[in-house]
């Protein structure tokens, strides 16, 4: 096979959200762009992350509703619905991936299947079966290669007993007991999912609360709800050893919680813990780059230490969200095009797609008090929201944290129906400097879940309408 050397205005490594969005933005500005993908087009988000998990969670919520209705209650039906859910998930993935393929071809972006590896800081070799089959050259390279789970002792994913999120998506049978290691957002989503299908779930979190990155109130409410649904939640808990020899279709975990050791048996152990930047095979040292704490470090312009090389998305760490990758990719391209733009991480929404959903943006109450001293808090429970009462989605609340002097919105925290949609009202207010007083002047349609935000804004000044004064 003849090796050719092709030159592009921009080479992007990885076709996930960080990579493909940057490719489209750059191509729209007239740059010739090549995207190198070693796995599935669309990366984690489209194939193993956002889209498939949301498809599954949606099916799980439907099943949960059926289940709660009391009309159906047998294990067989649960398994058969679970299989249907996987099918629907696959359809969703196929649809978004083929959509992406069309978008990339619309913008005449060259997509190269193969494993990228640096030859030097401006040349990339594309390997197929460990042989370099193609060389690409550019003055601008964007690394958007994503992240992979960090292997941590004593739990090594071996695919049979100990699995990761990738394996979940290809499960064909439901375990009867499941340990989920990691009480962050992804752990909770899986806990919800399996709980809906009747799996006995134990959630293990090392910190003193689940969802440690969200507002404490959401953590507490969420834990209460999970416990009510018979999910066992262990906080400040650590796996000290694992015995993976099969006994009665189960294996053993030794859990240390608050100084107490406990031996627990599970049919499956799902690890959704820490991740690291995926630089496998990239040979970044040839571009004079190295990892810092498992990730490629970049400045606020998404520039790496090597001139001409940028990085965006999961590979730079700081949270794993497709929308964070979109945003960083956009900033990287703007800088590539000569505009000096910078990332502002405060404006990135944090979303949990469990049911109810949770979402937050900006500072938590604790962070706000630490930074501003006194702050205003406006709160409203969905229990008092008309739409919630009508639909039975009464769990949760809205909390708006604002600064006292100008009413600037510092943080919005929502736990409840459609929280991941509602959060954008907060995002818009924060990004465009609309304060609580201005939110009070908006007209909200009735009945909507959004009214809870309106009432929380009113409550900031003790003016909430549909709420008993505490």
């Amino acid at each position, binding site marked *: 096979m003849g090796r050719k050397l092709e030159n592009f205005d921009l080479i992007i490594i990885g076709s996930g959200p960080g990579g493909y969005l940057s490719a489209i933005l750059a191509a729209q500005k007239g740059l010739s762009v090549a995207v190198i993908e070693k796995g599935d087009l669309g990366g984690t988000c489209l194939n193993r992350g956002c889209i498939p998990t949301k498809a599954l969670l949606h099916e799980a919520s439907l099943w949960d509703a059926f289940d709660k209705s009391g009309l159906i209650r047998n294990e067989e039906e649960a398994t058969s619905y679970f299989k249907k859910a996987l099918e629907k998930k696959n359809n969703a993935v196929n649809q978004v991936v083929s959509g992406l393929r069309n978008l990339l071809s619309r913008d005449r972006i060259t997509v190269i299947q193969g494993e990228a590896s640096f030859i030097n800081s401006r040349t990339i070799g594309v390997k197929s079966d460990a042989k370099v089959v193609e060389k690409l050259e550019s003055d601008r390279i964007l690394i958007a290669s994503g992240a992979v789970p960090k292997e941590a002792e004593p739990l090594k994913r071996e695919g049979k007993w100990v699995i990761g999120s990738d394996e979940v998506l290809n499960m064909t049978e439901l375990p009867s007991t499941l340990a989920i290691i990691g009480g962050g957002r992804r752990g909770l989503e899986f806990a919800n999912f399996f709980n809906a299908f009747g799996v006995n779930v134990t959630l293990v979190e090392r910190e003193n609360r689940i969802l440690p990155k969200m507002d404490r109130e959401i953590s507490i409410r969420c834990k209460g709800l999970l416990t009510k649904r018979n999910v066992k939640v262990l906080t400040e808990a650590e796996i000290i050893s694992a015995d993976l020899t099969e006994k009665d279709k189960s294996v053993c975990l030794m859990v240390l919680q608050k100084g107490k050791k406990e031996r627990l048996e599970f049919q499956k152990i799902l690890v959704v813990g820490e991740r690291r930047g995926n630089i496998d095979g990239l040979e970044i040292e040839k571009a004079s780059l190295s990892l810092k704490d498992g990730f490629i470090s970049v400045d606020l312009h998404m520039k790496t230490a090597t001139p001409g090389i940028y990085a965006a998305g999961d590979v730079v760490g700081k949270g794993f969200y497709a929308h964070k990758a979109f945003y960083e990719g956009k900033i990287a391209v703007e800088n590539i095009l000569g505009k000096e733009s910078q990332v502002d991480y405060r404006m990135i929404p944090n979303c949990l797609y469990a049911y109810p959903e949770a979402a937050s943006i900006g500072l938590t109450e604790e962070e706000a008090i630490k930074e501003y001293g006194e702050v205003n808090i406006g709160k409203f429970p969905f229990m008092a929201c008309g739409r919630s009462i009508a639909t039975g989605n009464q769990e949760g609340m809205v909390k708006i944290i604002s600064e006292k002097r100008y009413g600037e919105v510092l943080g919005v925290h929502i736990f409840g129906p459609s929280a991941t949609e509602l959060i954008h009202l907060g995002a818009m207010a924060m990004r*465009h400097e*609309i304060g609580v007083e201005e939110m009070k002047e908006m007209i909200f349609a009735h009945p909507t879940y959004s009214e809870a935000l309106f009432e929380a804004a009113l409550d900031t000044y003790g003016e909430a309408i549909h709420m008993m004064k505490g």
Partner: protein
Amino acid sequence: MIRRSHMATTVIMPKLGLTMTEGTIERWLKKEGDRVEKGEPLLEIITEKINFQYESPASGILRKILHHEGEVVPVTVPIAIIAEEGEVWVEVPMPAAVQRESKEPSERIFVSPLARKIAREKGIDLSSLKGSGPRGRIVRADVLKATERVIVQEVVSPPPTPMPTGKLIPLKGIRKIIAKRMTESFQNIPHFYLSLEADMSAVQDLREGLREEIEKRSNIRLTMTDLLVKVTASALKANPIINSRIEGDQIRLIEEINIGVAIALEDGLIVPVVHHADKKSLTEIATTLRDLTQRAREGKLSLEDVGGGTFTLSNMGMLGIDKFNPIINPPECSILGVGRTVEKPVVYRGEVKIRPMAWLSLSSDHRIVDGATAALFLNHLKKLLENPTLLLI
């Protein structure tokens, strides 16, 4: 939009003088809805030189005030509507010039609510800021940057002194005009000052000699100021450079000799002009000055009365001042300050004698006048005062 009718009267910004292009509305003396009679004072207008009570051009109800206090309005632009009860008027678009001249920013400023609040609190004028948000929207960062500039300015200024207490008088009306014009003059014109003493006995004798006759003929009491105007006019005619002004990069030697005379008023001072002073007789000068003084005190001077001066005379003799350096009244190039006439011992014809002496001080614009030229003029003036019969030549 303004409303205009065939029947209603549109009050326009009057053109009070040939050079007037715009006027500031100082004060409306009537409110919307008030009845006003033709000839009754309607509003006060400030021009470059004076403030002026403008009388209503018609009788009726002041139905609409189109421009409010503090607005600068070009001449002939409508400022109010006077109409009878029940009379209607049609809407016509407001002239573009007014929209441009209006001090209130009519254009919408795109600004985030937060930025607006901070600007209001910090006293930052939003119209002076350039926004860094999408399409120039002003955001918090822009206001904070402007605040920093203000703080930097405050840092370099002297340490704050405690705010003094006492009554506050607004700098407005004639006070504002004086403040503006004197600052401009003193900042822009390189002043220099010459002084000499003149023996006033001859001119005093002349005044005594003429007083009775003039009073009998014209019922006017001849003053020393009248004589000073006459003498100065003659000296100016002989020294045309003192009667000149700067026009761009040229000097205009003005043919007319129009002498302004500073008159103290209760709330300031005004300088009405004796036009063609060199061509007027003493009686004419005295008559003119009396009339101007009278009208100045009544606030009834026209723009013509105060315009066109080529030289200014400021006599502080009656205020007990010996000697002072006046500030030039632009666009003129010189001003004469005359002190009181006081009897003192001087060497007169080889002997120490008691003579009535007065200080004459000339302030001149050094761009036009040099020391020697000014000295020539001042000495000429002294010579005329000491030998007023020379005026007959």
